[in-house]
């Protein structure tokens, strides 16, 4: 075996390895501080106060696996009559891990005919989405959905 050649190769690899380590050090993540489940709970409290939220009546249609978090189709519907006396007043949507816990507040009324709203949202991470509906009698109903996001929104750099 030609020992000298092997050692040269090893020395080259060591050098390349250390150079790579030095090259990696200055890269710092610029990810913004994310909302947490706690801030989501706080945001929910500012909207609904101390009222009790029950589970049910609300349906959240959102793909369970999202490839692009920049635009995620979402439909919220509420099983409720829409008459002058009994109707859905508002729908509030929250998230756990975007930079902000709010997604949107939607205000309907007895004239809506059907309590359903669709829009497109951004998701910065795989997380839980929560929709809360406020009915005309003051009761609150909620639903949650888990979403897995492959490409996150908000975090990419602007070129």
């Amino acid at each position, binding site marked *: 075996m030609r020992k000298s050649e092997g050692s040269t190769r090893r020395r080259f690899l060591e050098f390349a390895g250390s150079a790579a380590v030095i090259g990696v050090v200055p890269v710092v993540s610029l990810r913004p501080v994310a909302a947490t489940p706690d801030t989501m709970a706080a945001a929910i409290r500012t909207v609904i106060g101390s009222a009790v939220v029950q589970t049910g009546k609300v349906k959240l249609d959102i793909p369970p696996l999202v490839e692009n978090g920049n635009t995620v189709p979402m439909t919220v519907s509420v099983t409720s009559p829409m008459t002058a006396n009994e109707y859905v007043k508002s729908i509030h949507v929250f998230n756990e891990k975007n930079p902000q816990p709010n997604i*949107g507040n939607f205000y309907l009324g007895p*004239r809506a005919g059907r309590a359903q709203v669709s829009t497109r949202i*951004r998701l910065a991470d795989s997380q839980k989405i929560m929709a809360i509906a406020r009915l005309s009698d003051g009761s609150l109903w909620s639903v949650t959905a888990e979403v897995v996001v492959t490409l996150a929104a908000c975090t990419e750099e602007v070129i």
Partner: protein
Amino acid sequence: MASALINVPKKARRGDIIEIKTLMSHIMETGYRHTAAGQVVPRDIITSFTCRYNGEEIFRADLFPAIAANPFFTFFTTATESGKFDFEWIGDNGFSETVSATIVVE
């Protein structure tokens, strides 16, 4: 220049539940992105959307940075009388756009 796409049925029968679709072209800059130089890109979003049917508010939304670019909404209303829908978007940096559509109710 902002532009909007509105989809309202031209005709409906009294009492029908009609679907309304709206799309406003807008960047919806979140305020959480950075340039390559590390500077924060300032927030520029639409914060409020309202739909009025013959002057009466039938749908309103508060928007947050989590609403995707070119905000798109679908919602419903009951056709009660012929008239006009007024759509209004209000946002950061003085953004304000209004569009209207007419409907004939038989």
